[in-house]
């Protein structure tokens, strides 16, 4: 009970959305921009953002009477200019076989020119507009479904809602059209909403209806979590830039992915819905509060902030499940040498190597100069081939290990440069908060990019995600 009350400060309610965000941040001029789809389309295109192509528009009854119906393509979306909540949108997928004046809808029903005329009259009379004022109807090119989404989406096109505040993407949701929503990607009408991890663009939790949590596509065993959305960075970029163009301080950008064109900006929302919080199982207010007051200069900076602040939940989940830390292919490590000497360097994670090795100079700085000098004095035997190496290694080990305090071991290391004899020293390093005691071999890496590589033997407590951005 206590927890509920405390968490309620993290959740954005209707009152706070309207009073604290929509009203002060989305001025009338910007709101007009969000409500007027044709105006928005023109301005966004002018600013280099991808929008669905405009086929034709009908501004009044006179234009309707003289409209050339043959000019329409086989598939298109008919929309009211000032519609809201996805109302009044009619989508056809192709011409009826053998006819030029009839089209087919997703559910197989036929749409004739007369049907279109009646629908457009309704639009012109304002039946679907926000304030029931006369409206404009327009035809738009129909977007094509991405193969990846095919098993998940019922008939329509899924879209991605990104909430942008202060140039930072704060929360995102993938909306899948369902049978209940009649192929529309609208949560109110029964679409599925999937929470998205902002750092990676991977879906997390799912909600259908008002607040019903689900894990699979209804009536299948197709998991809804873990869908990796393609073009993720591009999607975030479009969302953030559309905020700069529109001037909407608190924006819900709807972006769909076209099979041929990639991400396309569908719509801007000045009053984004609150269900996105249920899909993400996270409150929006807490996130907005964290972004408030930050001075974000560039789109890139905003995206990076959003990813770092509000991403990585999946990682944490995996870490929790496996008890292992998720690291990238390059990680910062803190090396702890002799007498507690500490040096922080970038290390390359190398699953092709057995052991960890560090650069000679670095080893000297960590206090191993003495042992390296000693190592220089021993025999430099290198076997011709692997067969004799083991015996030779054993012999050298017996002879020299223990002669110097810091010399833990001697080993032949097989690398792309051939076989080399290297000394090993005892050293601990801290990577992603975990201390790993290890024996590392020392070799000259001065002409290589990273002074340290971490090998398999020291990676037992980690999982490697090659997509993880390097810091």
């Amino acid at each position, binding site marked *: 009970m206590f*927890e*509920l009350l405390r*968490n*309620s400060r*993290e*959740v954005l*309610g*209707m*009152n*706070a959305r309207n*009073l*604290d965000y929509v009203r002060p941040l989305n001025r009338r001029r910007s709101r007009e921009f969000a409500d007027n789809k044709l105006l928005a389309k023109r301005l966004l295109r002018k600013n280099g953002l991808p929008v669905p192509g405009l086929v034709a528009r009908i501004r009044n009854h006179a234009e309707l009477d003289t409209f050339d119906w043959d000019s329409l393509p086989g598939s298109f979306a008919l929309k009211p200019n000032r519609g809201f*909540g996805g*109302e009044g949108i009619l989508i056809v997928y192709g011409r009826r076989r053998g006819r030029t004046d009839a089209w087919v809808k997703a559910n197989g029903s036929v749409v004739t020119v007369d049907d279109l005329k*009646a629908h457009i*009259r*309704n639009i012109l*009379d*304002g*039946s679907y507009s926000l304030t*029931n004022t006369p409206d404009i109807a327009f035809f738009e090119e129909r977007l094509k479904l991405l193969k990846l989404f095919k098993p998940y989406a019922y008939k329509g096109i899924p879209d991605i809602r990104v909430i942008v505040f202060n140039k930072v993407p704060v929360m995102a949701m993938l909306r899948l059209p369902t049978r209940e929503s009649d192929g529309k990607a609208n949560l*109110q*009408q029964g679409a599925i909403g999937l929470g998205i991890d902002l750092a990676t663009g991977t879906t997390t939790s799912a*909600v259908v209806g*008002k*607040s019903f*949590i689900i894990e699979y596509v209804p009536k299948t065993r197709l998991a809804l979590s873990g869908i990796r959305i393609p073009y993720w960075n591009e999607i975030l970029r479009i969302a953030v830039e559309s905020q700069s163009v529109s001037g909407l301080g608190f924006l819900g950008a709807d972006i769909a992915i076209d099979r041929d064109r990639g991400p396309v900006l569908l719509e801007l929302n000045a009053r984004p819905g*609150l269900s996105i*919080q*249920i899909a993400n*199982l*996270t*409150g929006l207010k807490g996130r907005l509060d964290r972004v408030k007051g930050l001075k974000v200069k560039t789109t890139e900076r905003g995206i990076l902030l959003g990813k770092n602040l509000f991403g990585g939940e999946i990682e944490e989940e995996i870490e929790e499940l496996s008890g292992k830390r998720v690291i990238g292919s390059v990680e910062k490590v803190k090396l702890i040498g002799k007498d507690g000497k500490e040096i922080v360097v970038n290390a390359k994670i190398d699953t092709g190597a057995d052991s960890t090795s560090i650069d000679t100079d670095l080893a000297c700085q960590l206090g191993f100069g003495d042992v390296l000098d000693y190592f220089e004095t021993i025999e430099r035997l290198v076997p011709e081939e692997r067969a004799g190496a083991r015996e030779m290694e054993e012999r050298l080990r017996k002879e020299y290990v223990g002669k110097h305090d810091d010399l833990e071991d001697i080993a032949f290391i097989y690398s792309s440069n051939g076989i080399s004899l290297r000394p090993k020293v005892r050293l601990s390093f801290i990577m992603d908060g975990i201390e790993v005691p290890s024996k590392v071999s020392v070799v000259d890496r001065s002409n290589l990019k990273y002074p340290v590589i971490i090998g398999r033997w020291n990676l037992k407590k980690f999982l490697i995600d090659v997509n993880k951005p390097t810091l």
Partner: protein
Amino acid sequence: MEFSPITQFIVDQNVPAQTMALLLLLPVVATLASFFRQVVGIKAFGIYTPSIITFALLAFDPNGLKYGIAIFASVIVIGMVTRYVLRRFRLLYLPRVAITLSVISFSMLGILVIGGAYHRTGLAGVSIFPLLIMITITEKFVALQLEKGTHAALLLAAETLGISLVGYALISWPSFVLFILAYPWTVLLTIPLNVLLGKWTGLRLTEYVRFLNVLRQK
């Protein structure tokens, strides 16, 4: 309880006490509707409809509840059926609402006639205005049905009736009305109260239910 000097003064100017009471009760009912929206989270059809229906219910007294609810329900049901029948004709919005209103008017007339035939004249005896008010909520209902679907419209209609019933309970409570007449200035308190409601940014009660899954997270 005594009338306050203000009330006495107003009544002395030939303003009926009944009229004065109703005018003073309107802010109270309106505040009730705004409280239900902002704090409880019950939307209803805005503020006008629940307020006006509250007074319509009062006008149906002494059988306010019985007749009021029956008429409200029949208007909604007839409105829904008419819309269903009219759907296939593909009519434009206003003509369609006009037809719906006509059908409801005829039905009301029918109900009055049937009531009269069974010597239940209580309904026919009331003023026509509350009846007209009830009929005109059809437009709100049809518009919402078009916008948000039948299910949502029915829910909002039920919420509207709910708020109206609470309002009715309040303003048909004699002690409350007498209190207002005794201390008419207390009605002014609705203004600061609404300022508070207008600045209220907390979660609505219904949102605690809606976001329960989010609130339960660690």
